[in-house]
């Protein structure tokens, strides 16, 4: 199974991935709508991208009391069934990587869905190669 990986030492902090990610999932470009987050220390040129680690035994899934979360068997991503998500944010507390997010407007959790197996973020990171899907 292919995995989407972030390589912090190669991240240039350009945020192209965040802008295209939010566009694909929310229909608008923003930072808050992105499934990838970048924490920056601009003075030292350090940019650290974080995204879902696609855990073998995902604590977010176990934590969900509404059974809204499950592993997508095709891509291995965590899928959130919005119709079941009750907005309790237990999954967010459970995620050790801080890569499960909450949309305050719709009161739903969200995380990387690997764009159904064709992640857009990787397409705008071809030179730095800070994101790979292999």
């Amino acid at each position, binding site marked *: 199974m292919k995995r989407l990986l972030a390589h912090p*030492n*190669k991240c*240039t*902090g*350009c*945020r*192209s991935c965040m*802008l*295209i990610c*939010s*566009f694909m999932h*929310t*229909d*608008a*470009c*923003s*930072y*808050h*709508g992105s499934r990838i987050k970048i*924490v*920056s*220390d*601009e*003075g*030292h*040129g*350090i*940019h650290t991208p974080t995204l879902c680690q696609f855990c073998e035994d995902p604590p977010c899934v176990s934590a969900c009391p509404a059974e809204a979360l499950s592993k997508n068997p095709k891509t291995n991503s965590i899928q959130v069934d919005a119709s079941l998500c009750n907005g309790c944010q237990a999954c967010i507390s459970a995620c050790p990587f801080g890569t499960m997010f909450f949309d305050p407007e719709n009161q739903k959790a969200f995380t990387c869905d690997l764009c159904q197996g064709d992640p857009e973020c990787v*397409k*705008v*990171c*071809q*030179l*730095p190669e800070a994101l790979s899907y292999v």
Partner: protein
Amino acid sequence: MRFAIAGKILHVDLSKRKIWTESVPEEWIHKFIGSRGVNAKILWDSMGSGIDPLGPENTLIFGTGTLSGTFAPTSGRTTVTCKSPTTHLYLKTNVGGHWGTELKFAGYDYLVVHGAAITPVYLWIDDGKVEIRDARHLWGKDVRETTSLLHEEIGDPATQVAVIGQGGENLVYFAAIMVSVYNAAARGGAGAVMGSKRLKAVAVRGHGSVKVADGKEFYRSCHVAIKNSYEDATAKFAHLYGTAGSVPMVNEARAFPAYNFRRGYIEGAEKIGGPYLAESKYLKRRLGCNACIFCCHRYCEIKEGKYAGCYTGGPEYETISALGAGCGSIDLEVVIKANELCNIYGLDTISAGNLIQWAMEGYEKKIFTEQQLEGLRLEWGNGEVIVEMVRRIAHRQGLGNILADGVKRAAEKIGCGSEKWAIQAKGLEQSRVETRAAFGYALAFAVNPRGPDHLHSETIAEFGTRPGGRRLIKKITGDEKYANPRLIEKRADIVRWHEDCFAATDSLGLCAFINTSRFGVDPQQMADMFSAAIGKRVTEEELMEAGRRILTLEKCFNVREGATRADDVLPWRLMNEPLESLARGQDVMKAVEGKTNPEDFTPINSPAMLNRMLDEYYELHNWDKQTSWPYRETLEKLDLKEVIPELESKGKIPRKK
């Protein structure tokens, strides 16, 4: 709901401590595209001629790109516009980083700063909330420290900050406005204008988003642009080696400005070039401006030796020529250290290096008194002196105080013939392009409203060294044979096309690296992305015409200030002294297939050749050749009728003979 743009202009009057907003007129997006274009309109409307650039009447405008905030490749650039203290003419200075996108996400496309505060202040823009805050505790602090202190004060290290260092505070005529710490709106003294307003910083946090009108088409057109950009052979080179990648080649071409433009070559230049830097212990990371897909910016550290503890963004090609070869040095550590100081003091590296070179040549010619020198040994290649002079310039100490006024004023003050080696025109220090080796560049530099540099019309295509460049020259002139920088013919056509394209590129918030330095994206693709974003069909021709309208409005600003054809010149040295290294026949053009120098080629920008190109250029623009001023019919045709009454009342609408 506005597509692509936030739709708002934020005005702040520091004298009256007043804050207000207005909406961006719909018509402006079609006429002026955005960013640089809309800035030009705001600047024209906001002042009359003859105001003091360092007085409260100057207006400082920050304009985000119309595509900024989206994933359109390289769309994160911002243009800062004001009247330049260096030239007393039009100034636009463009910067990358992430500040502009943050401003847009905070809900504003433009920030217009009027007046001047009595004591230092900073602006805090937190989405819809805007405050003028006390900055007395920040005054005197450098760029990096101020940014950190603001992060602490605001309690959010993700806050984006535009800031001046000691350079701007001390009204150094080439002080930069720094954003995202190491990205500089460098040229022409915008930092001094900010300093004169006692505006230390603008901190911004935005949680908004940008919506485009036609998502499907926007996605399609952006991906075409991304794909084509990646396919350009130099894309990878730009990422791996940065702008400094070209140092060894330009040096081999004998066109790498060294020793204050006396030579086009320096022995050992590969040791300050991008490929060497990439393999060195100094390069730690590669960085990218917002939404960039190339990421040509560098981050370097020096861990040991004299400059241990130095860490900074850069160095770029320009910085390496200005603070290295130009000063007769090939010491990469000196370049990185001087770059760090320019960054944290907030100085333009191009001008800072230019001034140091001018002083070194003056030292060689013994024009300074012992008192002026204060023991400084300004010998070529003396690294310690290069670093020390940057400090003294920023703090206006000793000789640094004379240099801080820019090379034109410094030469006027010192005299002794030093204006002949003051590499400036219109008062602006020339960027690091050997225009005696490339005549399209020479014309572009001479007519640039802000003074001689490459960020007005980057005519790299004229070299014809890449297929994309040759195709472009054929498109503009009808024949690939004009892809030869040693020809005078067709330079006007080439420059004008690039002007139009560059103005449109800046105004969309895109980087010149997608279309005039590299050839992945053409105006058609820009028009496609723009159309999809705003939801109105804009043709390639309309986009390029808007580019010309913008350039013409910038020109009109200079006309209103009293500029004439006599201002469209190049530095004295370049117009009067041939470049020795090229004259000896060591010329890379011979190595380029199918190209030799024309019979009558002399590596000089003589008045005769420049005049010929200028005649053709003004004619092409339908501007009066004697004065260089646009005719009424030209302004009417470009739908710039609004500038006619004022120019007419000043007698500056030429009559057609």
